[in-house]
């Protein structure tokens, strides 16, 4: 099978970027899309040219490093999958496949398809935790958590922090990302003491990092590789409202 890749090339954050086309032979449809990029890069290096830069690491959909918009969709056409889990069997002979970086004000481009998502870490440092020092914990089973709450907390905690929700949002909002963390801890008794403080601080950090506001487009839920649900954003909003009323902060 032959396909054509249209890839965003940009030398650095300040440089102008453009699409470049590469014809690629796909030896096996079991190959992943990133492995096709590897092959294209092998060809470029052999010709003495600079390889296409793209983020990737675990290549099994869990580290959240890969971050491409493929054919207009964050992480590509496959549902509930990260870029690295997209396989060439989803394409057909002659397809022109377009690969772009995640685009958002808060995610400056580093090079080609690589962006800087450190804003998400900074938001986490403002409240994405439970304040517990090592050694201070009581016996694990002394905290009882209803099974359904634990399952819902796990659904939210499955977020891999890839930022696809931001890339897909017309406002480049980080609501689903923040909602996932706020929900996880709001659903668990351990998160109780910091509940109000957490949501207020994370929301403020999200705004100051340049993420946009939520206007209920639900694009984030549609592209989330871990299927983190929109209901978490509703919970985030309830938590925020509760915090504003309850907490004087």
């Amino acid at each position, binding site marked *: 099978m032959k396909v054509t890749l249209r890839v965003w090339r940009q030398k650095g954050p300040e440089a102008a970027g453009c699409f470049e086309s590469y014809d690629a032979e796909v030896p096996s449809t*079991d190959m992943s899309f990133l492995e096709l990029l590897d092959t294209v890069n092998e060809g470029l290096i052999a010709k003495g040219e600079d390889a296409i830069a793209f983020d990737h690491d675990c290549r099994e959909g869990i*580290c*959240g*490093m890969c971050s491409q918009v493929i054919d207009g969709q964050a992480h590509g056409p496959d549902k509930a999958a990260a870029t690295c*889990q997209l396989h060439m069997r989803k394409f057909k002979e002659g397809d022109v496949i377009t690969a772009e970086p995640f685009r958002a004000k808060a995610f400056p481009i580093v090079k080609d398809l690589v962006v800087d998502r450190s804003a998400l870490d900074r938001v986490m*440092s403002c409240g994405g935790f439970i304040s517990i020092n090592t050694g201070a914990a009581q016996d694990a089973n002394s905290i009882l958590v209803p099974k359904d709450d634990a399952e819902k907390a*796990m659904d939210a905690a499955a977020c891999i922090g890839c930022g696809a929700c931001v890339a897909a949002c017309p406002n480049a909002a980080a609501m689903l990302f923040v909602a996932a963390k706020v929900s*996880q801890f709001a659903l668990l008794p351990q998160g109780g003491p910091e509940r109000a403080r957490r949501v207020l601080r994370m929301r403020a950090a999200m705004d100051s990092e340049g993420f946009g506001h939520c206007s209920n487009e639900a694009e984030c839920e549609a592209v989330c590789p871990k299927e983190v649900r929109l209901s978490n954003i509703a919970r985030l909003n309830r938590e925020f409202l509760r915090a504003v009323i309850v907490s004087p902060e």
Partner: protein
Amino acid sequence: MKLDAKIPDGPLENKWDKARFELKLVNPANKRKFDVIVVGTGLAGASAAAALAELGYNVKVFCIQDSPRRAHSIAAQGGINAAKNYPNDGDSVRRLFYDTVKGGDYRAREANVYRLAQVSNAIIDHCVAQGVPFARDYGGTLDNRSFGGAQVSRTFYARGQTGQQLLLGAYSSLMRQVGMGSVKVFSRREMMDVVMVDGAARGIVVRNLIDGKIESYAAHAVLLCTGGYGNAFFLSTNANSCNVGAAWSAYKRGAAFANPCFTQIHPTCIPVSGEHQSKLTLMSESLRNDGRVWVPRTAGDRRSPAEIPESDRDYYLERIYPAFGNLVPRDVASRAAKRMIDEGKGVGKTGLAVYLDFADSLKRQGEAVIKEKYGNLFDMYHHLTDEDPYRVPMRIYPAVHYTMGGLWVDYNLMTTIPGLFCLGEANFSDHGGNRLGASALMQGLGDGYFIIPYTLGGYFGGTKLPKVDTSHPAFAPAEAGARGRVQKMLSIKGKRTPASFHKELGKIMWDKCGMSRNAKGLSEALAQIPKIREEFWKSVSVTGSGDGFNQTLERALRVADHLEFAELLVRDAFERRESCGGHFREESQTQDNEAKRDDADFCHVAAWEHAGPGKDPVLHKEPLKFENVHLAQRNYA
């Protein structure tokens, strides 16, 4: 070089208590005068950095990825062991210790493993307090499942994403400290060298992967938490960026490398599908709780699995090992799969796979229950293979997964370089010749949360460390060395890509030093690897520039390290003329083809000392004493 393991004397149960009492303390006000560098942010690194910052130390953290949350611990699936005995099924600290020593085929230190079992329960307590959403029962208590090599259910889990959840727990504690100003994170940095002052580690040199600048950082101690070296085999379950570089640079500065030949081939991975493959994907061992492994009874039976009736199937693990069944340790399960495949009973297009079948469990427990336990793993398998494991059995094959060997450390986790500590998979200490499932997460977090906070204090409290910053004359040459290496690589301008060398090395490693090893193959590998290395330095092509984001250069630097390190791995495998755990020497096997140890000659840790470029490394032996566990041929039947 003298190896002093510094194991406290006295009864096993009291050693850690004794050590903690004897280790010097640093008073709270003085802790902030100490700078600590932590390289790597997986379970060991993130937990150590968080715990040390909580105590008041100034911590600088370095990681390759764009965020500390992406270290490869994130991909650990099945669970974490602890001796809680919540299921009331006979577990205890003693039993967890015993199972781990036996599982490691009696090549780990008793004292280290016992301490690990002792701290295991506190890990679970701490992780729950951090908000890790472990699986629970309806009454709200924690649930457990079984893992290989144990007859009790001691594994705590968060679906098939336990590593992710534990790492995010440690990461959240780390980010809390970042917010408080006690930790500074340096992401997208790759360690190039350890800087030595007066014989002690006092800093590191890193390459900034964004702008290519070589940077120096000074500290009072350096902690390497940089994971394993499975990528020396090219194809492994490791993430693409995992590499031996940091540990290797420490080795070249005088840190002994222990038991490099102890590599774990995991029995349940998704089989290789073709030449294009860039990595292999694990299917958690936890699946063996409910999946049954089988092959057709007759060689060459090419029928589809649905067409093969029960009577024509061989559930070989249940047949050969009735006591442990599908839950034998990984090395045993991998070799059994290899034997079946060598007999021509392999399945799938390539014949290089066996079945892992959930049909019975799906019938007994229903799809909803199986989905709750393993949903994400089934989805991963489906994405990758385009086959639905709820309908057809999974095809699995062994793959390089974890490395038990690593930098030699004493009981305090310090390498042979004073002030250089090594934690988690990167050290050698707790798993012997084979790691049991769900023990890696336990060790990484045990080292980071509950061991290094004590032993590092002991080092600081008992050592005079003059003030050193990056203007010290030891930094400039280390920086120049790193720059020179980059320049040299860029100047070759050859014809071959770094990846092509990596593949070539990986093939030799897998064929000659993989699941089954013998003297002839190993000596062939020892002759071939230096030739590939020579060719690499003559004809590698690294495009792009040194002063910018350049993944081709990153890859080339890592491949260069693997090309050096692989030779040490093979040499160690050659010298260890016994089978034990994951190290299977064909010359040393029982009548039933099980690994046969040679305790008379090889009951030791092999610690290799760098002797300088072009010289053979020097082998030192740390004898292993077993005073609490009786050395025996492992028996899982």
